[in-house]
């Protein structure tokens, strides 16, 4: 019980979950898969992003509770993403691995060369950031800008780094092609 109580105290503010984690996880799914040539619709990105956001919320609380390293936190996050992409979208594992890795490389690079210089330049104390949910959301969103730019660019230009197989996209077809099925039924008649 004590462990649960300690864990509970380390949960971030709920606003961070909704305004930072969910946006970031949906963007990671959307842009990562766009980079391997699998185009998601917004609702499909959310279908992956929302459960992973809850997972990240829990995982960050665990990190703060047990003080394990940032590398472990990053790897656990990536693993969660790979599993979610694989299980929810039913994409091949290799597609999930490559898409997630690309997204994480973009995030880490943007945090290194975009977010942290801003934090250093304005001399912002990270402890203060962690205690202020809106500031945490704002900085979180700042680090997502490169992902957002790449995702939007890829959406309009259909650019992708790789063209990996979408495999058996049973869930994708069900969500996105309702009108298509009606046309099929008409053609059959």
């Amino acid at each position, binding site marked *: 019980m004590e462990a649960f109580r300690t864990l509970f105290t380390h949960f971030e503010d709920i606003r961070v979950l909704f305004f930072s984690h969910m946006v970031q996880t949906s963007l990671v799914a959307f842009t990562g898969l766009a980079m391997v040539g699998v185009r998601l619709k917004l609702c499909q990105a959310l279908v992956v992003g929302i459960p992973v956001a809850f997972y990240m919320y829990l995982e960050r609380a665990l990190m703060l509770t047990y003080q394990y390293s*940032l590398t472990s936190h990053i790897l656990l996050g990536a693993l969660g993403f790979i599993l979610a992409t694989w299980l929810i979208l039913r994409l091949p594992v290799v597609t999930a691995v490559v898409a997630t890795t690309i997204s994480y*490389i973009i995030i880490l690079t943007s945090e*290194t060369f975009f977010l942290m210089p801003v934090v250093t330049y304005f001399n912002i104390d990270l402890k203060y950031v962690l205690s202020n949910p809106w500031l945490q959301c704002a900085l979180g969103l700042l680090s997502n800008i490169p992902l957002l730019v790449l995702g939007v660019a890829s959406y309009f230009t259909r650019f992708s780094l790789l063209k990996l197989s979408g495999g058996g996209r049973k869930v994708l077809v069900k969500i996105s092609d309702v009108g298509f099925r009606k046309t099929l039924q008409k053609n059959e008649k």
Partner: protein
Amino acid sequence: MNSVFDRKIAWLSAFVLIQSFLILATGFNCYYNYKYYIINFPITKSLSAIILIFGTLLAVGSLWFIRQIQDLADKQAEAEAQAVLMEESREMINVLRAKQHDYTNHLQVISGSLQMGKPHRAMEYIKEIIGDLALVSNITGLESPELAALLLKKISLAEANGIVVKLSIESRLTNFPFSAYELTRILGNLLDNAIHALQEDFSPEKILLIRISEDLRYYLFSITNSTPIIPKSLHKVIFEEGFTTKRNKGNGLGLAIVKALVEKNKGQINFISNEQEGTIFTAVLPKNLGD
């Protein structure tokens, strides 16, 4: 290999990316743990910065590397598609040569009928030839020469086996957005199956109906063989890999490949099989790939 990455190359890319990601994550951990979180982190600031920069360079380099592999794979796929096009064109020329040879015979028959003073026989014969000419003209009017070559070849094969071929081309497939290579694989497999099924059947009337049409949003390709009928017990397994009714002649991949290619292009394949209509396989492909 087509433009979709070969599985081994995809795993190689994953391996390269994961390695650079791990180094980048370690660099990130070293640098920012040193800077912000843990006080006694056993690494100097400059060394952690070097690891971080090295990890970043490696990550960017690996993205560039896999992009180059993708370009090579695309070029290889393009070369293979060109080779298929060449082969199809060669076959189309052979079929047209055979037709030309047939027409020489037809002209001799007409000339003979006229010399024998039987113009009505000659007229009837000409009417028959016009039907054949219309069929060739319909096929060669398609925008895709690969598809035209395939249809000419398969129709010749079917007719040589005593199958009556009926063709309904209501679309010339102008601005068809899909790869000709994939389309010929889809229709080639469906036509092979239909011709094989008709060949094996003992029915006196064997009809193969090929229909190509389009509406505002979709292209529709339909292949019908009048007989045999697929038993209901097989309907669920017909698209599964390894399923075949051709015994030793088939590997059971044809329809599975067709299904995969159609779904890859966001289309759908389905079939009906009953006594009244025969067996109809229909592939529907959306005009706009974004649909």
